[in-house]
């Protein structure tokens, strides 16, 4: 199974990329763990996680085709 990860704002800058494709990730926690290994600077970053455009407030199981976004603090308006 494939998961698309998208990075925004400061997070994209720190990751040095705006997206990543990951395979065989069971849930959000494993995904964060994997990203912290691939992009060590993310450890120091403040962000919230959205799964399919909905903010995840707890660990969520991931399915094939899910889009996960790492969102730094909002600054609209």
């Amino acid at each position, binding site marked *: 199974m494939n998961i698309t990860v998208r990075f925004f704002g400061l997070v994209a800058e720190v990751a040095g990329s705006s997206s990543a494709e990951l395979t065989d990730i069971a849930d959000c926690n494993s995904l964060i763990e994997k990203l912290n290994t691939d992009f060590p600077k993310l450890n120091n970053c403040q962000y919230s996680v959205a799964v399919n455009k909905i903010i995840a407030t707890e660990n969520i199981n991931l399915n094939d085709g899910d889009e996960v976004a790492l969102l730094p*603090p*909002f600054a*609209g308006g």
Partner: protein
Amino acid sequence: MDKTLSTEISMSEKKKYKVFVSGAISTQFIADSIAKHSTKTTIGAHDIFLGQVRSDVIENKTVKAIDYSAYEEMAEEKFHEIREAAFTKFELTCMHLYHSMGIVKTGEICLFVFVSAKHRTAAFEACRWITEEIKANVPVFGKEIFEDETYAWKVNTK
């Protein structure tokens, strides 16, 4: 068959209100938006919130612009949710939301929340509620660009 399908698509696209505009929101655009409501004569009250880019000084450096980006697909969904919720919560005649993407210089307008109602209480309450919802829940990011071309990522306050 083709014709039916394309009509359906265009109707569903029409539902999704386009909020993001490129660059600053002009005062002429705001004036035209207000003027369009002169035919809606059940309206007694408009409340308009405008966000303007401040020349904040951060560690001795002065902001000259904000470069806005967004998780646009999620942001448009959030704007849509906020719209629907506001129409349910408040007795409104109409509502228009616009937010800048890209560079907006200090002194320019980056957010335009426009709410119209029969009576003022609904307009005031809705405009404030919508603005707070946008600030809290819409994934928009702002890079504050200083006069020396360095930058910092903005975090919202009240």
